[in-house]
């Protein structure tokens, strides 16, 4: 099938999904199957369209609409196709998951949820393919509005509507910057098609860079523009959270790639440095804040901030290499970033789905109240574990592959920046990435242990049952993809180099193709720093096999049943390690950044020596919220209070203002 047919079929499937959800809103089962089933079909068609582009080269066709702002073209080059594939894959998995998960929402506005969900997915797919400024902005805003309404779906909860409000305000600020960035690129009197955009000269080009970084950075959730993300992602229904955290924030990476690769071209060194600084901040602070959370969905949302930071490490490296005239290394860095886009989309949506399954089974998102679920939900536990290992960047899973590639790019930084600065930057950024991975691993040890291991910490956790197969199947598929991309990353990396090479000039294409640098990072025979995931897996399996043989030969397990000695008290779940306790050493080590405020309440008892109840609370300080957003909101309120003096409520005074302005304008206009 031609791309245009696939695209039309995709749009049709989503339109049918929306119509079905709307028409059958009174019959939730029908609406559920129509909305989410057709959405899954649409997403698969998007993946097919992407495959078609990769097979047959970039595609373009004009839409048969004539707008006020000129013709609208759908153009799918390799970059668009890559994002189509990412969104399609995650969207399809989330839609199948939603078939079972939205049973929770029967009788709770399921019709509108299905309608908005389909609109949300479609708008994302349109964003990454449409090739005209106004159409892009419209699709972008449609995406924002649909996701805003989905975040606010459980509007009875005050937290949800508050989160939605914060989200709306922040993304609107971001969109303003995006529009400015686009308008800076539009040639005077020129067309608004992406092909006609050209970078302006001088400081306007820098302004376009900064506006794009702020605008798309808000959507991506880079620190300090991230405040909406940990509020909004947990508030949405879980399959929507999976899509938002997995792919919606990646549309911002798509926007950045369009701007920095295609529209603006290589810039000064400080562009890359600025992106790298934001990336380092986002990755370390994101994972530190994640470690401090107890709400599993909120924790995962903070991990999205961290992973966006890792992706931006690749983007920033790409910018630096491009400005230093090193297209091959720039291609490496960009490919690392795009690879992590895909990987994060896979494992983050997998983890959100796992969290959703747990939430549905145990009715709580607080990991302090979970525990022991591995016995009740073995498959969910297994898939969650795969996602956790992947996000921690451990080999042989996909998170490792892309982080390894990012490491390779960062180690080469001194090639772009001469002197001590480059060496220092490389050292610092490599350690930042390493620290991030280590902290993420610590965080997921905590999450997995608290949710799945030990004894249930509450009655509802003890009553948990395994999720429906419709929820397990997409999780299993995503987990399998995580493993596959980790073990066999090379084919995808060559696909990604093909994706970014056209933007980096003809030289880059040749260098990337001939040098085959990507194999350097992964081939066992290459120079230092090289490795092969497949060989690694083989070694791992061999080791396991040897261990199994050794166990068979020499292992003898003596089972001895007996009660755990707990000083004469019956052991209960309250004696287990808590998430707060697990995070305490890290909270101490990073006290300078997290500024924890512990709060111990001891309820005194006449009997001094036993039965004292202690309540321990610890709050950490979100420095950017405290240092930027709180003063800003206070300032806004103070300004409003000041302006209120103008608003006396007297009609006469209001008309008086008009008279004063009229007379002033009249006098001024006659140059009196």
């Amino acid at each position: 099938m031609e791309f245009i047919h696939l695209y039309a079929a995709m749009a049709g499937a989503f339109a049918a999904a929306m119509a079905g959800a709307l028409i059958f809103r009174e019959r939730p089962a029908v609406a559920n199957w129509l909305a989410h089933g057709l959405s899954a079909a649409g997403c698969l068609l998007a993946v097919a369209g992407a495959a078609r582009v990769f097979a047959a080269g970039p595609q373009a066709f004009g839409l048969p609409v004539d707008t006020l702002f000129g013709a609208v073209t759908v153009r799918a080059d390799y970059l668009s196709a890559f994002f189509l594939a990412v969104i399609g894959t995650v969207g399809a998995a989330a839609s199948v998951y939603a078939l079972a998960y939205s049973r929770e929402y029967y009788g709770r506005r399921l019709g509108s949820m299905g309608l908005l969900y389909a609109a949300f997915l479609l708008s994302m797919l349109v964003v990454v393919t449409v090739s005209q400024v106004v159409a892009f902005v419209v699709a972008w805003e449609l995406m924002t509005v649909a996701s805003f309404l989905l975040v606010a779906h459980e509007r009875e909860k005050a937290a949800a509507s508050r989160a939605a409000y914060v989200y709306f305000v922040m993304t609107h600020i971001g969109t303003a910057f995006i529009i400015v960035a686009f308008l800076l690129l539009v040639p005077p009197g020129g067309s608004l098609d992406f092909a006609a955009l050209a970078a302006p000269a001088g400081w306007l080009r820098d302004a376009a860079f900064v506006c794009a970084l702020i605008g798309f950075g808000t959507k991506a959730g880079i620190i300090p523009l991230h405040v909406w993300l940990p509020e909004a992602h947990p508030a949405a229904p879980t399959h929507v959270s999976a899509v938002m955290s997995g792919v919606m924030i990646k549309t911002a990476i798509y926007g950045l790639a369009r701007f920095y690769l295609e529209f603006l071209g290589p810039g000064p060194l400080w562009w890359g440095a600025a992106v790298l600084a934001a990336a380092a901040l986002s990755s370390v602070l994101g994972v530190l804040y994640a470690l401090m959370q107890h709400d599993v969905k909120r924790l995962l949302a903070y991990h999205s901030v961290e992973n966006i930071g890792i992706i931006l490490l690749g983007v920033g490296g790409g910018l630096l290499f491009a400005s230093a005239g090193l297209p091959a290394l720039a291609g490496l860095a960009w490919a690392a970033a795009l690879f992590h886009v895909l990987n994060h989309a896979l494992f983050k949506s997998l983890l959100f789905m796992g969290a959703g399954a747990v939430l549905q089974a145990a009715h709580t998102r607080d990991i302090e109240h979970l525990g022991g679920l591995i016995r009740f939900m073995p498959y969910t536990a297994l898939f969650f574990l795969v996602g956790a290992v992947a996000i921690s960047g451990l080999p042989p899973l996909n998170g490792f592959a892309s982080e390894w590639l990012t490491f390779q790019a960062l180690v080469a930084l001194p090639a772009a920046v001469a002197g001590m600065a480059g060496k220092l930057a490389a050292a610092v950024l490599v350690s930042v990435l390493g620290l991030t991975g280590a902290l993420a691993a610590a965080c997921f040890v905590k999450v997995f242990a608290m949710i799945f291991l030990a004894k249930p910490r509450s009655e509802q956790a003890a009553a948990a049952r395994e999720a429906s197969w419709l929820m397990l199947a997409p999780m299993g598929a995503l987990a399998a993809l995580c493993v596959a991309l980790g073990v066999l990353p090379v084919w995808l990396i060559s696909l990604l180099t093909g994706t970014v090479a056209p933007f980096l000039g003809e030289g880059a294409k040749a260098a990337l193709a001939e040098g085959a640098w990507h194999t350097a990072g992964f081939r066992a025979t290459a120079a230092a720093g090289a490795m092969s995931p497949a060989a690694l897996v083989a070694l791992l399996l061999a080791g396991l096999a040897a261990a199994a043989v050794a166990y068979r030969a020499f292992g003898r397990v003596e089972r001895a049943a007996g009660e755990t000695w707990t000083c004469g008290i019956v052991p209960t779940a309250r004696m287990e390690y808590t998430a707060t306790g697990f995070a305490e050493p890290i909270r101490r080590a990073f006290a300078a950044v997290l500024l924890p405020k512990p709060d111990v309440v001891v309820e005194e008892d006449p009997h001094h020596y036993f039965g004292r109840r202690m309540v321990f609370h610890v709050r950490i300080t979100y420095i950017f919220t405290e240092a930027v957003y709180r003063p800003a909101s206070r300032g806004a309120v103070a300004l409003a209070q000041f302006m209120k003096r103008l608003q006396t409520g007297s009609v006469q005074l209001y008309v008086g203002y008009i008279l004063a302005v009229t007379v002033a304008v009249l006098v001024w206009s006659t140059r009196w």
Partner: protein
Amino acid sequence: METLAILLLATAFLLTRTSRLATAVHILLAQSAVVAAACAVAGWQAGETHMFVAALLTVVVKAGLIPYALLRLVRLLRREREVNPVIGANMTSLAAVGAMVLAYGLIEHALPAVISRDAVATAVALVLIGLLLIITRRQAIMQIVGLITMENGLYLLGLSTTRGLPLIIELGIFFDVLVAVTVMVILAFRLKRSFQTTDTSILKRLKG
């Protein structure tokens, strides 16, 4: 034309002095009649027949329907009068004089040697005095009167600068005024019903 301009300024000046609502409406009626006459005169000078239609419409709408509606309302408000204006009558008159000076000064500066100097200046002065009435009076009726005065000024401005607007636009303007006044009369009536007064300073309480 000059005579008519002087008459118009005189009516506007009188409006700043009156505190009885019925008197104000009668002065307004006279003012609108003068505007209609000005329209007819302008049409006669320019030889445009459609101006006579406009003049007739002015008489019907501004000297007929609107004063009729306002007077009916005033009859219901027997005990209402402008007792406590924001600025007293004397100061308002002074301000009106200031507005006239300002208007003439503006015309001298912006359009030196314009043919219909008096008419244009009168128009600007009427707009300013109308605004002044809205600002300084608390009675809803007086504010409506101020608005119609402004409207008359605008109409005169259009008349004196363009040799008459196309009829369709004039019809639009009349319809606009009629609808606006209808709404305002209804609102004033509801104000009376809800608060037993048409003193708009009571609306301050609406502020949150």
